[in-house]
């Protein structure tokens, strides 16, 4: 039992969400660090590569992986009567996913598959089955890696995060969540309770492309998530999220603005290339080079735009 002093970490399993929030509030007030542990797919890896910590400064590990208040997937909407056209089908606009819902739950959920296939595709690709079975959206968001597949998909969907503390709940658009590399507006006494997505209409075109060294497990060199609503050759909604091309997951604001500015047929490939390159700031690192990432970023977005033009 050797890894970075793991056995020395104090560990606690709270009964429910209120107890978790009380605990977080008390510890934050005393300046004590707390680790909320869900799937552990980042935290254990960081312990494995990090130098051992001394017992006096070890944070309390709080297991939230099975907390009821962080589970569940729901569609908020209404069910039409059987007599109406499309009767007995759920017409819903908002998908709510509990923070500790795993990728495996996501990809196996029939509602997610039907109404948010981008999320299902990402969940199937984020890692192999063992990672899917443990990893969660809140964990992906809280870790704040710029390579995060889940965050890229949520960026494309312009998700809203429901943050909660004993002080109450607040909703933060994902676009306003990160303040820098692995930095966010999440307060020390807050947790990510759920993610909310205003769904595009069923059948809306989407893209999920992960470029890495192998299908399973690879951390993305570049990944693109995209979703659009196209009416009469023109985007009326366009969301893009890209991993591993900036200090945080990139929203590609200039590229979105270009795509929404006029009919798709009038947008030249050169314009797309220029805006994508303005939107990304990749670096050379262990997984890839800045030059390759720029090339792939342009190719992926151009490919998605070409597909949208054919709709």
């Amino acid at each position: 039992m050797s890894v970075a002093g793991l056995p020395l970490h104090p560990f606690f399993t709270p009964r429910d969400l209120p107890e978790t929030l009380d605990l977080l509030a008390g510890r934050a007030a005393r300046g004590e660090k707390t680790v909320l542990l869900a799937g552990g797919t980042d935290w254990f890896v960081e312990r494995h590569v990090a130098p051992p910590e001394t017992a006096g400064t070890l944070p309390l590990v709080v297991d939230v992986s099975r907390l009821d208040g962080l589970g569940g997937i729901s569609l908020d909407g209404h069910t039409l009567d059987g007599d109406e056209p499309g009767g007995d089908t759920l017409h819903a606009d908002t998908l709510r996913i509990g923070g500790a819902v795993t990728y495996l739950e996501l990809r196996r959920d029939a509602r997610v598959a039907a109404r948010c296939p981008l999320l299902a595709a990402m969940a199937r690709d984020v890692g192999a089955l063992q990672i899917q079975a443990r990893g969660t959206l809140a964990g992906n968001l809280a870790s704040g890696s710029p390579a995060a597949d889940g965050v890229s998909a949520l960026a494309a969907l312009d998700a809203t995060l429901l943050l909660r503390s004993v002080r109450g709940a607040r909703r933060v658009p994902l676009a306003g969540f990160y303040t820098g590399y692995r930095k966010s507006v999440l307060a020390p006494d807050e947790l990510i309770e759920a993610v909310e997505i205003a769904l595009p209409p069923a059948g809306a075109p989407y893209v999920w492309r992960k470029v890495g060294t192998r299908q399973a497990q690879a951390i993305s060199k570049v990944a693109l998530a995209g979703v659009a609503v196209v009416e009469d050759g023109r985007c009326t909604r366009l969301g893009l999220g890209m991993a591993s091309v900036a200090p945080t997951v990139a929203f590609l604001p200039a590229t979105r603005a270009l795509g929404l500015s006029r009919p798709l047929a009038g947008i030249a490939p050169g314009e797309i290339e220029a805006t994508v390159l303005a939107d990304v700031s990749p670096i050379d690192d262990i997984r890839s080079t800045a030059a390759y990432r720029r090339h792939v970023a342009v190719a992926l977005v151009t490919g998605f735009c070409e597909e949208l033009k054919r709709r």
Partner: protein
Amino acid sequence: MSVTLTVNGSLLTLEAPPASRLLDVLRERLGLTGTKEGCGEGECGACTILLDGVPVNSCLVALGQCAGREVTTVEGLGDAQHLTPLQEAMVTEGGAQCGICTPGMLLSAEALLREKPAPTDGEIREAIAGNVCRCTGYQRIVNAITEGARRREVRP
């Protein structure tokens, strides 16, 4: 602090630090050394076990997260005298080479066959995508799982 969980069908109460990796507890406290440590970072799948029937990397699970849950390791499948049809097929089809990935492969395959008794090649490959074979003998492993599925139909 004590943690109560079921390992290979036996209910156990362990006095052990709950932040320990499940992998270390299995190997060092319970002597279940069939579960291997490869990368220790959730990449290779050598430490795959079933947690409530689902394959997970035991290097990424805290013992405390297993309270009240059911853990299955390779020792919980069959033993040398009583191999399961899947284990038998792994032997006869040459699916085990150096052997270090075999326990994890068996558990990933076991979970697959419980859900899909007659998987396609593609389903098998996806199910073991998180298990790295350092001998790169994947085709024989896929053959073994196919053959294991066939034998399970005859003798579950």
